[in-house]
């Protein structure tokens, strides 16, 4: 290693090219591979805490590729410039409730082509498809596949299961 980095010292051009390659590779990895993002806010309680958790996001699932109902996704919020995390409840052609279960409204829609229906896990404190409607799949940044806490990591699994299957707990 000393000879490798030693080869860079005093060679500005070589150093610049090396730095450029490093940045390009990092960009490639974070944009098309895997990235992390902090989770904050009350909309995904109790799945995620208000503060102090980081999420592992698979960018291989960008634009909603391969996601299923029940998966968590990171997406570009259509009404501001932030990134949010919500649960997918409907994909193109699926049928979903327009409002919160138990709200008294039984109105439903079919999710249009190229869109998905996303709802936060903490129903009263989440701004999601119930507010802004179906979200274009192009706004999906990736699927949330893990939760990172200091000195602790665990995978996130899709909780949707058959009613006759025994529950995990």
């Amino acid at each position, binding site marked *: 290693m000393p000879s490798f980095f030693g080869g860079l010292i005093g060679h500005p051009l070589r150093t610049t090219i090396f730095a450029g390659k490093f940045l390009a590779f990092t960009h490639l990895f974070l944009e098309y591979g895997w990235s992390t993002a902090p989770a904050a806010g009350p909309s995904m309680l109790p799945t995620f805490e208000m503060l102090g958790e980081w999420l592992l996001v698979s960018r291989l699932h960008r634009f909603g590729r391969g996601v299923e109902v029940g998966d968590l996704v990171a997406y570009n919020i259509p009404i501001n410039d932030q990134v949010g995390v919500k649960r997918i409840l409907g994909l193109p052609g699926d049928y979903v409730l327009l409002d*919160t279960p138990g709200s008294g409204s039984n109105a439903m829609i*079919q999710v249009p082509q190229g869109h998905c229906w996303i709802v936060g896990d903490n129903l009263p404190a989440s701004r999601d498809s119930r507010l802004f409607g179906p979200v274009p799949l192009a706004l999906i940044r990736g699927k949330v596949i893990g939760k990172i806490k200091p000195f602790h990591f665990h995978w996130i699994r899709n909780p949707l299961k*058959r009613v006759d299957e025994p529950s995990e707990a």
Partner: protein
Amino acid sequence: MAPPCQSFPAKDLPSAVQTTPTGKLRKTDDGKRINLDRCDLMKLFQYECAIKHPDVPNSPIQCWPVQRLFRRCQDRNGKFMVETTAWEGTGTGTGAEDMTQSALPGLSRAGTDRRIQDP
């Protein structure tokens, strides 16, 4: 922006699930109509969370589960999901709803009535 979507009441689900978003008629592999009662019944929990004592600092957060039900159906083009939270047990199915109700007591309208307290 999403295209305009026509909303419909949950009781119309059995007829609404017969068409794709492009307006084509769905058919099963053997050329039949989609029968919601025959599709796999799935469940998922979301929550209603609130701070236990909002006036006390560091008060714990309490969450009550809200069950959402889905039917995973299949047509010639593959699987699709139908949320049936507001439909299960309403009796607008095509014949097998009695079976559903007896097999799943209390599952219908779980989001409104059944609030189990989470620790």
